[in-house]
């Protein structure tokens, strides 16, 4: 177990290192920072000063080391687009995305598991068929179409829910939260539905398949032979085992929610990291792009480690006796 965790930790560090190198390459070689920061008409002297200041005149390993050092200290440079420290810009936008992703993850996980179990148990009944068909449509519908459809129906036609933005937010320290106001929650509904639907259907299908397999397994057969009740078998035996593979995949899916939020944020004008990233891509705002990449990688790595831990806790075979 310890060895396993350490191996994962080592791999994670490796991943982070590789991504930071990628991010460094993006940062260093994409566009000319002197032009982006100083404009075309800056003098040669000004430019050289900036090049020296950024350390771009040094050998690449030194530059990379410097970049790593900066990154570790949370210094990602200055956004070319909004001309503010990247850290600040990202910190400002992160709460919106993280709240959206967290709520969506919750919805996708719970909904996916509940519906997946239902679908598996009533495989040949009409609920099962309906759920299977719905999940198929769910994975086929591009997120943006879902968003557009939801806006059209619930905001424009029915006037029930807001069509954009986060509603009112409350500042808690440096964190702006929409979870404390009614309008914040109302604003969350449609984006969360949009963001969660795809992942929900994925998890639902996964749970369904795993559940079907578990229900055919020997230990379930043996549990039946011992005369245990059906509920016990489904929830006490099959589901517990099903959750183990589900944890891994669901963990990855949840991790990618943050990146996936890009589309949802665009459709709903959600002021989060995704919208920032798209704007930065369009404006070739390299420091923000580089920082965002690292952030996503970090998030992924952390989620992966957590998943590993949970996995180990859920599966006694991985626990040390």
């Amino acid at each position, binding site marked *: 177990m310890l*060895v396993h965790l350490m*191996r994962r930790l080592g791999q994670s560090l490796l991943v982070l290192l590789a991504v930071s190198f990628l991010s460094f390459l993006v940062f260093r070689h994409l566009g000319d920072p002197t032009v982006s920061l100083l404009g075309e008409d800056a003098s040669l002297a000004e430019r050289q000063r900036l090049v020296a200041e950024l350390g771009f005149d040094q050998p690449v390993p030194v530059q990379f080391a410097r970049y790593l050092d900066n990154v570790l200290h949370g210094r990602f440079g200055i956004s070319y687009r909004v001309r503010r420290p990247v850290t600040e810009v990202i910190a400002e936008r992160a709460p919106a995305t993280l709240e959206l992703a967290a709520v969506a993850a919750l919805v996708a996980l719970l909904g996916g598991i509940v519906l997946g179990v239902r679908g598996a148990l009533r495989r040949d009944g009409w609920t099962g068929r309906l759920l299977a068909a719905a999940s198929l449509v769910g994975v086929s519908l591009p997120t943006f179409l879902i968003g557009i459809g939801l806006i059209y129906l619930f905001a424009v036609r029915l006037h029930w829910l807001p069509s954009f933005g986060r509603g009112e937010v409350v500042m808690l320290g440096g964190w702006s939260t929409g979870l404390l106001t009614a309008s914040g929650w109302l604003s969350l509904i449609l984006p969360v539905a949009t963001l969660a639907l795809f992942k929900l259907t994925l998890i639902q299908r996964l749970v369904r398949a795993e559940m079907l397999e578990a229900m055919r397994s020997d230990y379930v057969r*043996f549990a*039946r*032979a011992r005369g245990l*009740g059906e509920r016990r078998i489904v929830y006490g035996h099959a589901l517990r085992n099903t959750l183990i593979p589900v944890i891994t995949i669901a963990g990855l899916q949840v991790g990618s929610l943050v990146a996936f939020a890009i589309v949802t944020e665009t459709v709903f004008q959600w002021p989060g990291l995704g919208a920032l990233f798209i704007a930065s891509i369009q404006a070739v705002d390299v420091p923000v792009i580089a920082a965002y990449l690292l952030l996503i990688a970090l998030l992924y790595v952390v989620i992966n480690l957590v998943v590993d831990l949970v996995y180990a806790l859920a599966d*006694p075979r991985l626990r040390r*006796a």
Partner: protein
Amino acid sequence: MPSPPSSSAPPLLRVDGLSVHFDTPRGPLSILAEVGCTLAPGEILGVVGESGAGKSMLGKAIAGLLDPGGHLGAGSIWLRGERIDTLGAEDRRRLRGKHIGMVFQDPMTSLNPVLTIGRHLEETIRTHLPLTPSQARERALALLQAVGIAQAEARLRQYPHQLSGGMRQRVAIALALCADPALLIADEPTTALDVIVQAQVIEVLRRLCRERGTALMLVSHDMGVIAGVADRVMVMRAGRVVESGPVAEVLEHPRAPYTRALVAAIPPLDRRLRRLPTPDDAVPPAPLAVAAQQAQAAQPLPTVHMPAGAAPLLQVSGLSRRFDLSAPWLLRTLAREPRRVLQAAREVSFAIPRGTTFGLVGESGSGKSTVARMIAGLLRPSAGSVTLDGIDPWSGTQAAAALLGRFQMVFQDPYASLNPRWRVGRIVAEPLLALRARDAALDAGAIRERVAQALQRVRLPADAARRYPHQFSGGQRQRIALARALVSRPDFLICDEPTSSLDVSVQAQVLNLMRDLQDELGLTYLLISHNLAVIRQMCDQVGVMQAGELVECGPAGTVLDTPRHPYTRRLLAAVPDLGHGRRPLAARA
């Protein structure tokens, strides 16, 4: 077949004219037809028959656990004089566990890996009996002790993966006995275990039945097991009961020709036969003719005279192999883990003279396959040498090329050893494809020719070449594997458990074939098996392995009749045998 007249009390279980059929894409498929049997309290009924005969299906039908798609047709099932096959699903469920207990074949997968042993037991106990948690715990403890698990207290808190296979199977038995059912159905409870563990589990079952008066329906295809344990035996074939009656009677005086063939096909442990009788030989012709043929076939074989002084074909000396199971250095140091090395083979030396068969026996994990794989060039030895006809296949590519086609291997699993996506013709031709580079004469026509020959030699129809492996039975597949092994005209054949996944009857066919080929082609065999009877039948010399070491080696007769090493003795004692005249297993263990 009618069951024997029951004694005065009503039987515990009565099955009358039961038939079961399954819905398949091509319409209903009959699996059981007119099966009938009875079981008295405390009685042990052995159910035998070849694979697919419907043994498991009968058990499932009694317990009400048919897979979806299966239906009970005609017939009825009675438990203690009450009809149970017509009960509702919920009532059937209540019967299970409380009145009918079941144990399945595979102890590795029967227990839920994420629940503790205690959870399993307590949950089952409390489903059936109105006990408090602490009472349930006590009962669980008692049950574990009853099935002979030491340190029961600690085991309750453990997870299935922390138990050995034999322990798990005993836990499964304890689980089946939670509510003291009157009837226990055990479906091949020991097939997945090795001989010694198998003997222990069977002993537990026997003892429990005697002590508690539980009736046991023991499904097995191992005649030896049935012979050692059961009071009565029921022989099934193709969904029907062929014969049933007291064990001794059926085994010694089988009435149905099929039973006779089945019994005859079991290789005896104490004699070496020229040929093993097979049911195929037996069933179609008239019983009398069979008897005559069998009588002739069953002549004891004179021991082979080894040409003294001749150089052996294969010489293995000091062969060792280690597997490093520990984590990489850095992690190991960080986690303070010791280095874990598994010595799978240790200083193994033996020689096989040309034209003879060398048998390698030993319990599971003792390193038999490892040795074979090193000889076959699949696994690099850590130390020691292998020389085949004077050439060491590990000494370089040139040596390996020189040996190309000189030796072949036949594997245990006839399903995994043939590429399911290739036609048989191509599978058999494969060794030639590699030779083609060196041998210009091997054009497509020549290859076809040789494939046809090889198929013919293993008694397969010529059109087999155009079919796929899945269109053949297990025995036929093993013959395909043999054909492939023969096509390059090797001198030496390594057979790693070539029959252990086959029925007795099919096993007999394959063994006979091997024997015939040796006679025809002068082959040399290395035969690995954990079935001592098979070794007895086939081998001139035997090596016994334990934990990677060759503990005893010598002429087959000597080793098997007068074992010197204690391990060999233990191994021999654990073998269930029809034993002409029953000896209780316990006495032998």
